[in-house]
C-alpha cells in the first residue's frame, strides 16, 4: 500500500486499467474461477458474457475485493491491489454496480448519492452537517440530475420503482472521479425505453472512463462495448471484437444454443 506518488503517476501513464493474472477463486472444492488472465486498457469498454454460473459475477467480486481471490494477482492502473480491502480499491477509482440493486433502503435518494460522493473524498468521519456550498453535496445534486431522479430525490429508496432504483444504482457508480467501472447486468428488469436511456448513459460517459459490462441482453451489451470476453465454467474461452464473437460458431452453440440467460 505504500507506493510513492511518483511511482503511481508513472504507472498511470503506461499501465493497463485492469490486469488479472492467474486469478482463481475456490469455494471449498468448487472452482468458481480458474486461472483467469485478463487485460483491459484505460478507457476500454468491454463486455463479459457467458451463461449462468459461468463465473461473471464472481469475477467482479474478485476484482472489487468483495471476495478475496484464492490465488493470482490483480493490478489496477499498475498497482498491485490483490490484498487490498474493497474500500482501498474504490478509493483508487474503481466502481461497481450490483445485479440486484444494493441501495440504502432506509435513506433518501439524495442521501444515497451523497454517501457515494463522500466515500471517495475526505471527511468521511465528519461530525458536522454539510453546509450549503459543500462540494460533495453539489456533486450529489448534479449526479441526481444526471440520472433524471431530481423529482424524487427526497424520497426513501424503498418507495422508488425498479427502473428508478436501477438508475440510482448507476448514479452511485458515477460518484467522485471514477477511472473504471464494473456494471453487473445494468439492464436487468428495465423496460425498452429504460434500456435506451441506459445505452445513452453508458455511451456518453467521458472517454477516459473504461468499463466492463456483464449482460445477458446481447443487444444492449454489444452496442456499448468495443471488445468482448466470453466465459464458460469459470474460465475465459474466447475474446474478440463484438462482430467476431457474434458470428463465432462455437459461441453460438455454447451460449445461444444452450443455457440462454
Amino acid at each position, binding site marked *: 500500500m505504500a507506493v510513492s506518488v511518483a511511482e503511481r503517476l508513472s504507472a498511470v501513464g503506461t499501465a493497463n486499467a485492469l490486469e488479472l493474472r492467474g486469478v482463481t477463486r475456490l469455494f471449498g472444492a468448487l472452482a468458481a474461477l480458474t486461472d483467469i488472465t485478463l487485460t483491459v486498457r484505460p478507457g476500454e469498454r468491454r463486455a463479459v458474457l457467458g451463461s449462468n454460473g459461468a463465473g461473471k459475477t464472481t469475477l467482479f467480486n474478485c476484482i472489487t475485493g468483495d471476495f478475496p481471490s484464492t490465488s493470482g494477482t490483480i493490478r489496477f492502473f499498475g498497482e498491485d491491489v490483490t490484498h487490498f480491502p474493497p474500500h482501498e480499491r474504490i478509493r483508487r477509482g474503481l466502481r461497481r454496480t450490483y445485479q440486484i440493486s444494493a441501495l440504502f433502503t432506509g435513506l433518501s435518494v439524495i442521501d444515497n448519492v451523497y454517501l457515494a460522493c463522500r466515500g471517495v473524498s475526505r471527511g*468521511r468521519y465528519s461530525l458536522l452537517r454539510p453546509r450549503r456550498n459543500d462540494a460533495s453535496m453539489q456533486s450529489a445534486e448534479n449526479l441526481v440530475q444526471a440520472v433524471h431522479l431530481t423529482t424524487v430525490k427526497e424520497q426513501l429508496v424503498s418507495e422508488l420503482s425498479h427502473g428508478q432504483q436501477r438508475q440510482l444504482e448507476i448514479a452511485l457508480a458515477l460518484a467522485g472521479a471514477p477511472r473504471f467501472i464494473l456494471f453487473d447486468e445494468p439492464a436487468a428488469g428495465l423496460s425498452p425505453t429504460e434500456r435506451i436511456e441506459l445505452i445513452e448513459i453508458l455511451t456518453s460517459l467521458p472517454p477516459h472512463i473504461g468499463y466492463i459490462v456483464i449482460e445477458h441482453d446481447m443487444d444492449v451489451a454489444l452496442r456499448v462495448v468495443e471488445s468482448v470476453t466470453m466465459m464458460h465454467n469459470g474460465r475465459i474461452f474466447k475474446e474478440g471484437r463484438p462482430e467476431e464473437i457474434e458470428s463465432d460458431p462455437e459461441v453460438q452453440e455454447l451460449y445461444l444454443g444452450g443455457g440462454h440467460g
Partner: protein
Amino acid sequence: MALVETANAVGPGSAKAESWSLTSTFQAHPVLWLLALFLLILPAFASNFVLIEIFGWAMILGMIALSLMFLAGYGGMVSLVQMTIAGCAGYMVAIFGTTVMTDISLGWPWWVGVPLAIVIAVIFGTLSGVLAVRTEGIYTIMITLAIASAFYYFTLQNYAIFNGFSGFNAVRTPVAFGVDWRAPVPFYYLILFWAVLSYLVVVYVSRSPFGLALQGVRDNPRRMEALGFNVTAHRIAAYAFAALIAAIAGVLLVWHGGQISPGTAGVGPVIDILIIAVVGGLSRPIGAFIGAIIYVMLRTFALDALVAVGLDGKRFQLLIGLGFLLIVLFSPDGILGLWARWRARMQRPNTHGGRA
C-alpha cells in the same frame, strides 16, 4: 431489522426522509417545545423526589439507552455493553475521587478525576467495539453480553481496585463554583443539561457524514465498502461515540446513587437498558427517553399497583418481562412505532383500512 424499518415505512408519502436542519426537527414535532418547557420549569412545582428519583433517574437511564439506540438504530448493532461502560465510568469516578474507601480512592479533584474516568470508559467501550464488530450482526448481542458479564465478575472478585462485592459508598458529588451540585435543583439541571445536550448531538450527528455513513453501514455494509468506506473503522468509531454518551451518564449515575457496586452494571441492569431502548423505540433518539420514563414510572409505582390488584409486589420482573414480550410481539418498533401508526391512521380517516 424490522425494529427500525417499520417506523420508516408507515405509508407512501407520509414518511419523508429526515431533513438537514436541526430546527426542522422541532418544527415537525411541536410537542418537543412543550416538553422542553415543562422540563425547564419542573423544579418550580415538583418535589425533590420527583425531580431526582423520577425525572433525573429517567434522564440518566435515557442517556445510556440513547447510546444503545445510536448503535442499534443507526448502526444496526445491538450492543449490551453500554450499561457496563457507564458502570466503568462510575467506578473510575469513585476510584479517582473521594469515597469512604480511603485505601483505594485517590482523592483527586473532580476536574482531574471525572475527565479521566470518561476517557477510560470510552477506551473500554471502543475496545469492546473492536472485539464485537468483526463478526456478523447477530453475534454482537452475544459478544457484548459476554463482555458485560466479564466486567461484572471482575468487579465482583477484584478487591484491590474495585473493592469487590461491596463496591464504593459515599461517593461525593463535587461542590464547584460555589454550588453543591448534589442538591436537588442543581443536580436536576445538571442531568437535564447533559441529557438534552446528548439528545441534540445525536439528532444532529445523525445527518452528518458520520451519522449517514453509519446508517449506510446498517443498511448495506457491503455497498458501503464498495463506495470507499472502511466499514470496520466506522463501526468502531460509532462505538467510541456511543461510549462517550454512556460514560457521561455513568458519572451522573454514580453521583445520583452516591455508590457503585458490581450489581450496578450487572446482567439485570444491562438487560433493563435494552428493554428501555426497545420499548421506547429504536428508530429515533427520543425513544430512549420515552422508554426510560416508562421504566422509571413502573419501577416506582408498580409495587403499589401490583398490591392493589392482589398480586405480590415482588413480581415486578414478571411485569417487566410480560410487558416487554407484548411490545416485541405486537409493536417491535416500540412506543414510537405505535405512535407513528396511530398518527398515520389519524391522517387518513377516510381511506378504508389505513396502514395500521
